[in-house]
């Protein structure tokens, strides 16, 4: 094991405003280039674990380090520096409601400073890749659940980030499409991207035989190397 892990949780506690324990002492190390599944019952803390990395949630105790840097060091002001190192596909597929599919994906490119040219170059490709090219001009409210989910994944991939956080990326997809998406993630992983996926989709996970971290009530129950 190298000296410095890419991602490190050290005795992390998260307590939500109403006293609910999101995480209750999690310690975990993830190396660059790993592919990790997080599993566990609803409310076990999978989303919380991922949200800590994108700093949508804050830990109140312990340390969360990405590439050696403690995440509490990122202020609201320079948060985008952190988030440009990762692609995020949230569980409740948050798309910009007043932008079309195309614009939603393009925004993620433009927001990080890419040019219009790059947008015209990259967006159609990624839409094809996640299989929603035919719905490019639809607004999110006009999409089916699975289509939204694929757009969110496309948006997370568009910047080819070194780290990918996908929260329940296949909840609304059938087995065939789940596998397709998972294969996409595995491909990215093979090219060096670190991929963290929260999922309930056991059959698909079994096919890929990657590392599986099992959470229960905010604690790590099992950590099965792939």
């Amino acid at each position, binding site marked *: 094991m190298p000296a410095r892990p890419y991602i490190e949780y050290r005795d992390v506690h998260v307590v939500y405003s109403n006293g609910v324990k999101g995480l209750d002492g999690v310690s975990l190390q993830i190396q660059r280039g790993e592919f990790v599944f997080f599993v566990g019952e609803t409310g076990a803390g999978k989303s919380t674990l991922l949200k800590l990395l*994108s700093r*949508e949630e804050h830990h109140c105790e312990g340390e969360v380090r990405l590439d050696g840097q403690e995440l509490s060091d990122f202020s*609201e002001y320079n948060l985008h520096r952190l988030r440009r190192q990762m692609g995020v596909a949230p569980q409740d597929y948050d798309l910009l409601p*007043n932008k079309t599919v195309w*614009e939603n994906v393009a*925004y*993620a490119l433009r*927001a990080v400073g890419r040019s219009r040219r790059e947008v015209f170059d990259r967006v159609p490709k990624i839409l094809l890749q996640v299989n929603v090219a035919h719905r490019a001009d639809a607004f999110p409210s006009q999409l089916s659940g699975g289509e939204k989910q694929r757009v969110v994944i496309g948006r997370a991939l568009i910047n080819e980030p070194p780290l990918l956080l996908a929260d329940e990326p296949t909840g609304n997809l059938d087995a065939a499409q789940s596998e397709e998406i998972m294969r996409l993630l595995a491909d990215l992983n093979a090219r060096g991207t670190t991929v963290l996926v929260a999922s309930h989709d056991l059959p698909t996970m079994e096919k890929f035989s990657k590392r599986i971290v099992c959470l229960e009530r905010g604690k790590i129950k099992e950590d099965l190397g792939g």
Partner: protein
Amino acid sequence: MVDRIAFIFVEALQAMRRNVTMSIAAISTCGLALFLLGGISLVYVALDSWGQSLSGKFEMRAYLKDGVKPPEISKVAGEIRSMPGVKAVFWIPRDKAWEREKVKYPKEVSQGLENPLPDAFKIVLSDLNQADAVEQSVQRLPQMDPQNPIQYLKAEQELVEQSRSFLRWLAGSLGALLLLTAGVLIYNAIRMTVFSRRKEARIMRLVGASLFTVRVPYMIEGTLHGLAGGALACFLLWACQLSLQNRLEAFTALGQLPPFPAGAAFLVLGGIGALYGFLASWIALWVPMRS
């Protein structure tokens, strides 16, 4: 760089276009607030110029000593004319005054009498506030008759002058109040548009947009709302001015409205609107995003 600026602007314009309901509400609120503000300013200007025309109607009468000769009289008239607050000076020869007096009391008053009146000046004031100063200066002139004091309608003048300055003060403070009120109204409207899209700002941040990239479009949008509101206000004012002009023709004693300063109104109202919109969105971005 150009590409960045274009991106930010396109974002702002798109947001306006895709949130029609909110945009309409924000623009019409800004427009009405600025309309009221512009209206009160125009009322202020009109009151002021009307007040000025009023005070021109007030005059005093100063009596000369007996036997001052015409060349001397015109010299004194010139002196008085150069005093501050004096608009015009007329010499009223004693003969003319006596003739008028005869017409006024045609019965027995003037019957067979020798003209008892002195030569006099009619002094028209341009500034009522200077009335007392003018009175004293004139009275002190050696050619004036110290026994025959200056006459003027002091009480009436005071009433008119105080009314005028009160109305001006009223319009002025209403204007100041409206400036504040318009600010709050515009702030509310723009805060509502920002607030209704707070979730979007969160998503934008999530995909890596900097605070600048998220906020500047909102601020451009707010500024444009304010600017559009200013234009709307301008149009409303112009319409009001037109209908007011028609109405004013019935009030012959009041004179005409000054013409509507369309260009200036647009610049000022648009400017205030844009400034308010800018500030409102700027503040609005700080307040709800923390909640």
